[in-house]
């Protein structure tokens, strides 16, 4: 096989892996949007916040150490213990549930029945608050996150493809585990929403708020639940991205990457989020590979958006979304 084609195949595979991560973030958006009609801009910051909290708990950092030191002139940094990864994940999840409750209680309960664009702007505010709180709590420096996932090149794929094509594919173990985790997560979510009582209530709320309310489903509880699930998805996404490129501010920018994924897949469809993520992941990598050199590179920054823009003009509901969008 010619080299170019093999390169393209490798790029495609890597794009698929990146797409899985986009899909993970997009999934969090879709869950909240379906259940409450809120377009949660803060999803990416939630991933950052979750990853920061996880690292902080694992390393035994003192929360708000920076602030306390500044006020009282003390010199505290760490408790001096290390929490095992699994326990830290559970503790982080507790924090995310508390966050879900607080968001519901203090923000969105007061904004029920407002226009969607107003809710969207409120989540932008929320994103700023969480970013500031996360940085003050755990410090703004770049942190390493290691929860024991395998890293580095996958030798087996490298050797097998080398024997078959005479060219070894470079695929990161981390990407493979991210894919596996994402598949498990989606399967679990589908099982949850199909076979459990709470999951069915969730779907009922997503279909029709008032009807769900009239058969005795507590909207408040469901909204906290769905924000908690979104927090969990954010945590998973945060772990994956954090393990890949360190826990830092740019993590929150993946939320912006998830927006075109949603445009493509449709705002209301979980499979749409996943397929949209894969298309964007592969598309931007291939575009960068094929067209990028001609226009000076770094097309990854905008390719997804322009693709989404084209979709908006010709098929506003996305590939799988319901036709709820108001046409003008």
């Amino acid at each position, binding site marked *: 096989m010619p080299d170019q084609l093999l390169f393209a195949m490798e790029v495609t595979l890597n794009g698929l892996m990146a797409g899985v991560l986009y899909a993970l973030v997009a999934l969090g958006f879709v869950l909240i949007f379906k259940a409450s009609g809120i*377009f949660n801009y803060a999803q990416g910051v939630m991933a950052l916040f979750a990853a920061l909290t996880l690292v902080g708990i694992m390393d035994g950092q003192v929360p708000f150490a920076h602030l306390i030191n500044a006020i009282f002139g003390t010199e505290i940094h760490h408790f001096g213990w290390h929490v095992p990864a699994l326990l830290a994940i559970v503790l982080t999840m507790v924090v995310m549930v508390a966050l879900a409750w607080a968001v519901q209680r203090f923000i969105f309960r007061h904004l029920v029945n407002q226009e*969607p*664009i107003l809710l*969207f702007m409120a989540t932008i505010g929320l994103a*700023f608050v969480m970013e*500031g709180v996360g*940085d003050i709590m755990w410090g703004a420096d770049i942190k390493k996150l290691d929860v024991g996932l395998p890293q580095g090149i996958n030798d087996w794929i490298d050797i097998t493809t080398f024997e078959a094509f005479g060219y070894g594919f470079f695929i990161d173990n981390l990407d493979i585990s991210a894919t596996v985790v994402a598949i498990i997560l989606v399967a679990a979510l589908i099982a949850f929403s199909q076979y459990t009582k709470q999951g069915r209530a969730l779907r009922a709320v997503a279909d029709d708020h008032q009807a769900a309310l009239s058969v005795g489903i507590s909207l408040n509880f469901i909204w906290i639940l769905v924000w908690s699930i979104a927090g969990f998805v954010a945590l998973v996404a945060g772990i994956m991205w954090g393990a890949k490129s360190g826990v830092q501010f740019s993590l929150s920018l993946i939320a912006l990457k998830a927006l075109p994924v949603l445009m493509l897949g449709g705002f209301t469809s979980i499979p749409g989020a996943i397929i949209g993520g894969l298309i964007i992941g592969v598309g931007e990598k291939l575009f960068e590979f094929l067209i990028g050199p001609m226009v*000076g590179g770094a097309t990854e920054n*905008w390719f997804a958006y322009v693709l989404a823009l084209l979709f908006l003009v010709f098929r506003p509901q996305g590939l799988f979304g319901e036709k709820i969008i108001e046409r*003008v």
Partner: protein
Amino acid sequence: MFYRESGDFSTTYSQDSQTFPIRFDRYRYYVVLAVAFLVVPFFINDYWANAVFVPFLIYAIAAIGLNILTGYCGQVSLGTGGFMAVGAYSCYKLMTGFPEVSIVIHVLLSGGITAAVVTLFGLPSLRIKGFYLAVATLAAQFFLVWLFNKVSWFYNYSASGQISAPERSVFGIIVTGPNTDAWAKYMICLVFVTFCAIVARNLTRGSVGRKWMAIRDMDIAAEIIGVNPMKAKLTAFMVSGFFVGIAGALFFSVYLGAAEVGESFGIDKSFLVLFMVIIGGLGSIFGSFAGAAFMVLLPVLLKNVLVGGLGWPTDLAAHLQFIISGSLIIIFLIMEPHGLAQLWRLAKEKLRLWPFPH
């Protein structure tokens, strides 16, 4: 709510259709103008100009621009930073390409160029709205920043990728470049702000502005009573782009002097201007000023109190600023979606009835 007051009579049509038909507002406006033009320039120094007045005036223009689009016409835009970059780079190209032409004309022309670009990116608004449109404008933001970064023609092939403003003068007074006096910077911005605010105020209370508001309140009803939605939306994008372009051009040439697109016109600029509009008041020219003043003063205040007063580290103050501006957005959206302008209006109405509220 009628913008009239009892006991304040108009006897001619021209009196009735003045920019400020209420006598008290009119006098207040004259006083503010007099102070801004005749008092402030004599007392301004470099610190006040660079930290407070010049950014406030420039952001006020940008906020007016975004307010026309978001507050009056109801089209949310997250691309303000990118659009300001269009203004800045076209101003740079014009300044270096035609050095003999006055900078005032360059700034106005870059406003026009930005208007054209923004109208182009406003085309999707004819088919989509709400946050779908917001995402479409995000596309503009990222695409424009990438464009100005990658195409070296825009920054005249300079090695650093930066653009820096050459020295230009108006009536023999240097207004751009490193040798500019504080009061000259202030005055040129003030002249543009006054011009923009008067244009915006009169556009928004005239037939164009009413069409925008009709589209914002209910587009289908507006179309039925004879407002052409395509025309109304695209004019809103165009006018908004003109103001944002002027703001971008001034921001680069007068305020920064040298700029790098990703740093000066990134997505955070878009959010900053959006926050000004929300906090100041959607659909109010006064609100744009109030919001711009608030968002410019907040970091200065925090820095002076926390870093200067209490001796805290700078990064802590920066993070606190994130928290405060984010929570303010949420609080305003919950308590008072019409922002500081509405609070001001309420205070006026309360005071008018005081001390007998019934």
